[in-house]
């Protein structure tokens, strides 16, 4: 996501010169990415908005600790992860928050991606493991059925049938969820 890095750098450069609009834009750019990050990692997604706000405030009050000569992603990722750990600590939950590549935060191009992925993971988890693996390879990773079938112990024909069944049971679960 080179685009987003460039955009962020130019917004930072402008807000350094006291441009409030650019600074607001920068925060608006971060908010949905923070939201996606927290929704995926917090056990209770309704906490995500509080975490987004806390993190934005922390970014603001601690902005003097950012050195404009250094990359922005690791700084903002460090703050978001700290706020997530702090959130668990205050809830008395002991939970390991893995250290990821700082890029995960900014690279979420689509603002809806975080929430959608949670739903998708939940639905997929209801499928048997073998069907799920096949479906992920074909529908999410873009492999052909011929490529993916042997990886999961299917013949090509059986894989087609399994895929069809998986999609059917997925749409049944979606329908059940919406009731």
């Amino acid at each position: 996501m080179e685009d987003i890095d460039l955009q962020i750098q130019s917004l930072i450069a402008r807000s350094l010169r006291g441009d409030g609009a650019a600074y607001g834009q920068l925060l608006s750019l971060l908010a949905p990415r923070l939201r996606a990050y927290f929704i995926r990692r917090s056990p209770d997604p309704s906490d995500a908005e509080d975490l987004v706000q806390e993190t934005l405030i922390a970014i603001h009050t601690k902005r003097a600790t950012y050195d404009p000569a250094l990359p922005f992603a690791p700084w903002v990722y460090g703050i978001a992860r700290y706020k997530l750990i702090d959130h668990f600590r205050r809830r008395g939950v002991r939970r390991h928050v893995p250290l990821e590549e700082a890029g995960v935060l900014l690279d979420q191009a689509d603002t809806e991606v975080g929430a959608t992925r949670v739903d998708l993971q939940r639905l997929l988890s209801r499928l048997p493991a073998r069907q799920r693996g096949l479906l992920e390879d074909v529908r999410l990773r873009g492999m052909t059925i011929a490529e993916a079938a042997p990886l999961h112990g299917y013949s090509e024909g059986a894989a087609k049938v399994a895929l069809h069944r998986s999609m059917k049971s997925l749409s049944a679960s979606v329908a059940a969820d919406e009731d």
Partner: protein
Amino acid sequence: MKTDDLIAALALEPGFPGPGRLAGRLVLWSGAGALVAAVLTVVAMGPRPDLSEGPGLASFMGKAGFTLTLAAAGLWLTRRLGQPGVSARRPLLALILLIGGGGAAMAVELAMTPPSARAAQLMGHSAVSCPLVILGLGLLVLGPALAAARRLAPLRPGAAGAAVGLLAGGLSATAYGLHCAESAVSFLVVWYGLGVLATAVMGAALGARFLRW
């Protein structure tokens, strides 16, 4: 409050001033604490009698060189630990080298001392009080230094507190050197080192509490 409203409110104060000012503040506040510690040392305990003479002055300068370098490592470490997204590996490495250097110098000195005189040299005349006084003076420096460090954003507040404690302990040990006439390297490394370490431990305990954000 809606997130968009929050952003609009925050956007009224734009800018990324950069961490230079934070470091300056840390130096200023811990320096003020060190000044108080130095004045207290001279007024309450008195300067070492040989401070104005050649060998005494050289001994003071040598010790101050070591303890000020410890303080500088503490400052460097504090800056790195207080800044999200940067690595503290280099200041940590510097600190390890410094301690290793002190240990090596001590080994050389002990090797050159007759075995029967080693214990007396290591213990000097003030082995027990030295670390306690350094810790006591160190707390005077630690207070303002921690207050300045609250502006930082340490991802590990306890570790950052220990770094602030190293800064405070190094400065306090330097101030105490104005009074203490011990000049053995082994005394410096062990007893001054213990006082600085104790201040760093206090810093870790206080930092875990007061450097959260």
